[in-house]
């Protein structure tokens, strides 16, 4: 009897030690010379189609490098960051992470990301990448990310519906006044001109055309002093919503995040203001020919910039940084891989790749490439990446704009409230 008890006790103790051993068992040894088995973890966010082709690229890579094993982690944009933060705290980040412009400074400043300087033109060839594009991965003069592709803001629309709304074409140098006029005109014919502006992105664009920025250079305060800029910009759409020329936030809330439900896809809306890499997905969902137009001005050239759609970054807790760098090089410079990617993550940064795959592209992708090439010489340099705390600032702005578009507060109240909240959050960076 007693013996049996002791045996049980031993079994329980054993089980519990085994349990604790499990948790520390996943630090697979990695690194070393070229042909040693290496295992890498890579994480990205995106849609299903992105998950599928990214896996294809990874399979292609591992078939060429049989010693490398790559584990993947992917999620939607929101979930991705919720997963990544605890991993960062636990020093368990994947070797390669896809970084967004609004998060990269937070991760870099807190020492999560490796400096990539030593790998440039060693493992990662960047000879075909223009300085200004590569420079978007610089933070405080140090390279923390390799941009994967570049995007530019624009208006993506259905030319047929535009005609139905009584407008022949988007004028070459259109202005905000012209935009309001057109939105009212199509609105009166039951066609919504657009689906609203992502507040932070387009407010920043508007500020740039006026020579200001959303955040200051140091990232510890707002970059504009005159709240009139805020009220001028946000009044435009608030008025249009009030006049029912644009959809109410109530409706937009319901269809948020579901492309198939958007007005453009359903044929009740003419266009969408968004980044160029979102064009292809939109076109696929709509299954009609769409077109791209530049942003409205005045001073559109001062406002637009080539923004990296996302970066690849190597984390500091990676034990196989060189191998990780090799994979990034493959992504940037391999023709075969880019024929699979087809510019879905933005127009490739390497000019050689851009040329090599130009003939392979479907019509909508080619439209995007052409649009980006057309905008590239006009664009101004990018503002520094948004500072730490920017997600909170952006959320506060989005909440206020929602209240504004519902008509609960005035633009002046929103401006003051935004300045107060944003200043408090950003002051933490001082």
């Amino acid at each position: 009897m007693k013996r049996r008890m002791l045996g049980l006790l031993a079994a329980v103790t054993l089980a519990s030690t085994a349990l604790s051993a499990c948790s520390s068992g996943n630090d697979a040894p990695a690194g070393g010379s070229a042909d040693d088995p290496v295992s890498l973890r890579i994480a990205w966010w995106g849609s299903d189609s992105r998950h599928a082709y990214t896996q294809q690229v990874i399979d292609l890579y591992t078939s060429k490098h049989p010693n490398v094993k790559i584990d993947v982690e992917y999620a939607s944009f929101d979930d991705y960051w919720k997963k990544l933060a605890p991993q960062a705290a636990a020093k368990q980040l994947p070797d390669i992470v896809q970084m967004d412009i609004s998060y990269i400074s937070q991760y870099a400043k807190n020492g999560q990301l490796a400096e990539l300087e030593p790998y440039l033109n060693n493992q990662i060839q960047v000879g075909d990448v223009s300085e200004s594009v590569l420079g978007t991965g610089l933070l405080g003069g140090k390279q923390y990310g390799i941009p994967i592709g570049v995007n530019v803001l624009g208006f993506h629309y259905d030319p047929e519906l535009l005609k139905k709304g009584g407008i022949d074409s988007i004028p070459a140098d259109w202005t905000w006044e012209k935009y309001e006029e057109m939105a009212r005109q199509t609105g009166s014919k039951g066609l919504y001109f657009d689906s609203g502006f992502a507040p932070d992105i387009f407010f920043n664009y508007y500020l740039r055309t006026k020579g200001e920025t959303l955040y200051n250079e140091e990232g510890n305060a707002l970059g504009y002093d005159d709240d009139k800029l805020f009220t001028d910009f946000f009044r435009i759409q608030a008025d249009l919503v009030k006049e029912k020329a644009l959809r109410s936030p109530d409706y937009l809330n319901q269809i948020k995040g579901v492309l198939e439900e958007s007005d453009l896809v359903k044929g009740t809306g003419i266009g969408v203001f968004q980044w160029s890499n979102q064009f292809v997905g939109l076109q696929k969902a709509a299954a009609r020919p769409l077109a791209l137009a530049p942003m409205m001005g005045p001073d559109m050239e001062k406002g637009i910039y080539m923004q990296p759609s996302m970066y690849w970054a190597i984390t500091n807790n990676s034990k196989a940084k060189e191998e990780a760098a090799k994979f990034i090089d493959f992504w940037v410079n391999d023709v075969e891989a880019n024929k699979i990617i087809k510019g879905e993550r933005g127009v490739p940064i390497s000019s050689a790749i851009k040329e090599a795959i130009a003939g392979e592209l479907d019509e909508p992708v080619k439209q995007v490439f052409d649009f980006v090439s057309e905008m590239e010489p006009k664009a101004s340099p990018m503002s520094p990446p948004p500072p730490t705390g920017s997600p909170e600032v952006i959320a506060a702005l989005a909440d206020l704009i929602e209240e504004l578009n519902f008509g609960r507060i005035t633009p002046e109240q929103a401006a003051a409230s935004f300045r107060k909240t944003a200043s408090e959050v950003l002051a933490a960076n001082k």
Partner: protein
Amino acid sequence: MLKRNTALRNDLTGYAFISPFVIGFLAFTLIPMFISLYLSFTSYNLFSAPRWIGLDNFVKMFTGDPKYMNSLRVTFLYVFVGVPLRLMFALFIAMLLNNGSRLIGTYRTLFYLPSIIGGSVAVSIMWRNIFGSEGIVNSALIAIGLGPVSWFGDPNAALGMLVTLSVWQFGSSMLIFLAGLKNISPEMYEAAGVDGAGPARRFFRITLPLLSPIILFNLIMQTISAFMTFVPAYIISKGEGGPMDGTMLYSLYLFRQAFMFNNMGYASAMAWVMLIIVGIMTAVLFFVSKYWVFYESEGGR
């Protein structure tokens, strides 16, 4: 000596048997709780080391964060409207089922189903569609001439939508009520019937008093779980608590602070305040129960 040895060994055996629980409790509950208590006095963004800031988090909560006060208001509204409605509905269904029908098992399972699946993502998505501007609820409202309600535009309507979802998950309270109802002896009703008491009188004079301990139990359990509601608010508002923070329940705001803005210290402080609030609520319910709960075994008051 030998005896002591045996006693020790017996103790160890006991500990061995409860060790899975104890280890789990320590590793996943107690230690994290103390860490979160510590973090609630710090500013911590997950990346750099926590920085001690004393009571600043708590001060900010009650003096400098209107969104926090709003989330408290929304949560209290949700609890004080949702829980009584859910309990009434559960009791109503339980009384319907307490009639000795042979299909009772089937019905019981059917009515319990929403409680099992109600917290799931799929149901919350379905709820979004049911309450959409062209959804079945608005169609019904139009059909009876009440006009459409902007469920995603009006903060109070959006909270109402959450409350209906919570009422719909009445299953577990219903089962407990049903068990309680079966414990009330039929003789009482017979005797009351002979004395000429109608159904309403029987309900208020017999059913409710005899069921009151069970009502108390359900009330406490449901109140606690209602304070912690998260998934429906998260899914229905796509994680943003909208429209205009109308569905920004406490736990959702806590989640946003913790995992969207990485304000772990502030979120920990919020969690502790929540614990205190729930503790106070429970204490109040127990205290007040003296005046309305009737225990048969104590022969009444």
